[in-house]
């Protein structure tokens, strides 16, 4: 074993594994999506797109991502700045704020069900302050706004931590000298944040946003736990096509739709937040 071939031997297992379980399935899923009956065509897509639930689930998925991701980004930036300034108790606060990182979307949905359920804590609080007489069903088809709010809150609660971790790591990489220089030139805290932290944080922001946006398009279990069939999203429709309608061609077509949206978002985010050449740290 010589030093030239060693790195290739070391990366071989990963390459083979990802080839078999990442690239090959994507070829399969594309084949499935374009295959219908005997021939090749777009009929799976036509079936899926013409289903009355498709526009709703697409709209729900996109709206949810649009409502949740910017708020999470703002919240994570605030938390990251607060925690980098901290001297005492930093470890404890970071631990608390990153707990949701380990919690599954299903568990997060169940956690917020504890609050929003008919016999839940929100009803209890509202009654004790006299806003309502008896518990009302908050998560019903009569209150789509509340269903959306509950799902959005659960998503913000669960998945802000991943952005936070990436941003704190990114802020840690910014050399102190930049801040010292900014201070010498009389920049106040807000200016230092806008002119030093934010621009130098671009690579981290881009990583965090890509990761987060793709997860937002994959939203599934939170929605199942809180909204059930009241709030169809793309992934729950995909699941339905596979299991209730037993139409794996339709499921594959929907999977490609999710994939297409994810890739579009990834390209857009990396373009917008691209670091100009020669301007790296």
């Amino acid at each position: 074993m010589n030093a030239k071939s060693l790195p290739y031997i070391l990366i071989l297992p990963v390459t083979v594994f990802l080839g078999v379980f990442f690239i090959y399935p994507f070829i399969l899923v594309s084949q499935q999506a374009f295959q219908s009956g005997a021939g090749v065509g777009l009929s799976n897509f036509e079936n899926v797109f013409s289903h009355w639930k498709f526009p709703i689930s697409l709209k729900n998925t996109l709206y949810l991502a649009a409502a949740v991701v910017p708020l999470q980004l703002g919240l994570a930036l605030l938390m990251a700045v607060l925690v980098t300034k901290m001297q005492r108790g930093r470890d404890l606060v970071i631990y608390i704020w990153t707990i949701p990182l380990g919690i599954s979307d299903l568990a997060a949905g169940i956690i917020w069900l504890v609050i929003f359920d008919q016999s839940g804590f929100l009803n209890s609080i509202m009654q004790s302050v006299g806003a309502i007489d008896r518990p009302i069903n908050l998560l019903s088809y009569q209150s789509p706004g509340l269903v959306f709010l509950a799902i959005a809150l659960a998503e913000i609660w669960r998945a802000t931590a991943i952005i936070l971790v990436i941003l704190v790591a990114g802020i840690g990489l910014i050399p102190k000298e930049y801040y010292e220089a900014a201070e010498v030139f009389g920049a106040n805290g807000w200016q230092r944040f806008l002119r030093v932290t934010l621009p130098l944080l671009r690579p981290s922001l881009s990583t965090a946003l890509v990761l987060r946006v793709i997860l937002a398009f994959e939203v599934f279990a939170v929605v199942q736990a809180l909204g059930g069939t009241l709030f169809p999203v793309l992934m729950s429709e995909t699941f339905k096509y596979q299991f209730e309608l037993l139409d794996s061609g339709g499921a594959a077509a929907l999977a490609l739709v999710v994939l297409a949206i994810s890739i579009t978002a990834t390209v857009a985010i990396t373009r917008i937040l691209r670091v100009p050449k020669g301007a790296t740290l």
Partner: protein
Amino acid sequence: MIKENISILTPAQILQRHKIGRYLYRTLIIVLCAWVLLPLYLLFVNALSSSKAVNSFPKNFVPEFDFESLIFFSQFAGMTSALSNSIKVAVITMIMSIVIGAPAGYALSRFDFRGKSTFRLLILLTRAFPLPLLALPLAVLFIRTGLDDTIFGLALVHTTLALPFAVLITFSIFSGVPIELEEVAWTLGCNRLTGFTKVVLPLILPGIAASAIFAFVISWNEVFAAAVLTVENRTLTAFLLQNLDTSPLHLKFAGGFILVIPALIFIFAVRKYLFAMWGIANR
């Protein structure tokens, strides 16, 4: 700027402003901690109360420490086997992603080789794809190969999810060990293998453990692929998802509790490594 401030404000005013700022800062941190902890606490209240208390109204904000819900959960048909399936899948995922991923992490941190950037791109690319969707075509493939509805089949998919992270995390951990240490070991009579096992391995073991735990958590929490790929041998998340419509509230809350507890422990165990893992994995 400092001069200006002094000319406008008296020292007492400055001190007061400072105090208000500090007060605000602390309140903000406490509020944000409460935002994370309060929903968790409410879940614990419900999980540690009897089914009567869970369904009653208005609610008590203190748990009764009644284990009825949890006992009901443990006796619910199929729940314990789902729990043990979850653990088995997660353990297999953990082992496979480290055994397969760590060598690649080492290669990335120690060698410059042709195709390195392409390889890194492949790893990064996987994160730009909605991976759970892979379960759909694999479901068909697994039926043909006899892997359908097996623990190992699901673990293979979960390993695909965890592997990119394992590579990037081990890459950043190996990069933290200076190559000079290895070189010294070689001059002192170690070969590449013994130099690795005697010098590098002891240094990186905690980091490797942290990334293994991370792989475990990814598998433990995964819902979509688990629900697609298992029928009889459901994992805990798939089982709970399947029974969301029909199961009583206290069963859901007890299930949520069981899902959350390992997360609390695992994040505590890897907390030191979270940022090291992401700092380099970032770029």
